[in-house]
């Protein structure tokens, strides 16, 4: 466990020192600019617009940070050969992979927390009346980013190419938001398409259950949809990391 903690801690430190603070700074600048602009344009809908814009921006910035971090998480170490000095230490390869993953996810989550705090502060400054559902949206977004990080690490090891891994991850991201639509279209087509769509749907992450807008009756007093979403995100990510470990264990350097 100590080696896992060591890898996660230094990956976190590396990510924060590397580029993640820039993502947060850019977010803050964008949100401040947008709030000033929209203040003039949106009239009585200003808070609503800032709320939606802030949530979407936090998720997109989190996704960009997670994708950039995870496509290079192991590949960069292979290219720069820093991995030599790690894999010649007495640790199991899956431990290295999981440690790197945990460090990256923690760093992205930390940046998302900073963005969310800034977002909420801006809302209060504009006279926002607290809506508890917004505070459910934040952890769900974090889970979505965790799923995408796991999936992108898997893609990067399966394809051994950062551009290919990025393209596939973005494709999965889009498809993951259109699962029900995909199923509907397959059912309309009939035949083998239904079975094929079933397989595709099982493989791609179901990101709709981590979208607050797609889940009805979510509140702190009825926590089951949140618990179900968290369990799904955890299991899906664990499956991605298990597969990624399989690829990684057979890699030569």
């Amino acid at each position, binding site marked *: 466990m100590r080696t896992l903690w*060591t890898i996660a801690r*230094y990956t976190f430190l*590396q990510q924060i020192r*590397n580029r993640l603070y820039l993502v947060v700074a850019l977010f803050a600048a964008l949100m401040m600019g947008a709030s000033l602009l929209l203040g003039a344009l949106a009239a009585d809908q200003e808070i609503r617009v800032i709320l939606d814009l802030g949530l979407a921006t936090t998720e997109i910035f989190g996704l960009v940070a997670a994708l950039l971090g995870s496509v290079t998480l192991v590949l960069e170490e292979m290219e720069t*050969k820093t991995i030599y*000095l*790690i894999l010649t*230490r*007495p640790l199991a390869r899956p431990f290295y992979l999981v440690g790197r993953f945990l460090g990256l996810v923690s760093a992205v989550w930390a940046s998302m927390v900073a963005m969310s705090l800034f977002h909420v502060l801006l809302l209060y400054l504009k006279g926002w009346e607290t809506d508890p559902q917004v505070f459910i949206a934040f952890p769900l977004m974090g889970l979505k980013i965790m799923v995408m990080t796991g999936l992108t690490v898997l893609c990067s090891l399966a394809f051994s190419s950062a551009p290919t891994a990025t393209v596939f991850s973005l494709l999965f991201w889009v498809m993951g938001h259109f699962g029900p639509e995909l199923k509907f279209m397959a059912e309309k087509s009939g035949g083998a398409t239904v079975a094929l769509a079933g397989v595709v749907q099982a493989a791609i992450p179901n990101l709709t259950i981590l979208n607050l807008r797609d889940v009805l009756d979510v509140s702190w007093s009825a926590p089951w949809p949140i618990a179900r979403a968290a369990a799904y995100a955890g299991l899906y990510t664990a499956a991605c990391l298990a597969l990624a470990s399989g690829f990684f264990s057979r890699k030569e350097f």
Partner: protein
Amino acid sequence: MSSVAVSLNSVSKVYKRSHLGRTTLTPGVADIRFDVAEGEVFGLLGLNGSGKTTTLKLLLGLLFPTSGDARVFGHPAGSREAKKSLGYLPEIPYFYRYLTGREVLSFYGGLSGLAPATLRQRIDHVLAEVRMTAHAHRPMREYSKGMLQRIGLAQAMLHDPRLLVFDEPVTGLDPLGLREMREIIHKLNVGGKTVLFSSHSISEVEKLCHRVGILVKGRLERIVERSEWTTGGKSLEDIFVGTVDPEGRRS
């Protein structure tokens, strides 16, 4: 009787690469057999592409042998037990640019399973050994090549391993750096450590090694005892050239 630190028994490696459905096979090393006794300094000499780095990577578990058996202190190469007892310095050590020298050592020490108190003590010790104490708080991106090599050496010695594996440890070092590296390897050996290293530098190898293995096109052509170049009437360079180019085609 001293124990065997390294043992390679008929080890071969064929690189297999697949691209667009086509598989190409490239021989790396073939039928490598040699042992290194505990406490010995063993050098691997060879021209570029002769298989020196491949041999070392097979021992370290970075490559998997196509056939044969490689062991470190009796444990299969690449196993946790084997890795516990070795320290490795690659040809050009690469580090995390955003970490300081001390942080890098703390990171590698943590991965080697050193307890925090021991780790702090060992970091201070190895930093002093490689004369880097004064620079330990600077980020690695500010280090010169020589400083990176010293930190590389420090991380290899950090967990006090019984075997040190160095890949081209003197490449690119200035005369002072060369001398310091030679002194460190000598000191490690006097302290009971086994050292296995590859090199192009015949002069360094002949000063440091008890035995030398000469690799030619992926095969271990000859193992030379120290007495052969100290009292045998031929320099190590003559022996090496005579082995890699017996017909004198390159001269």
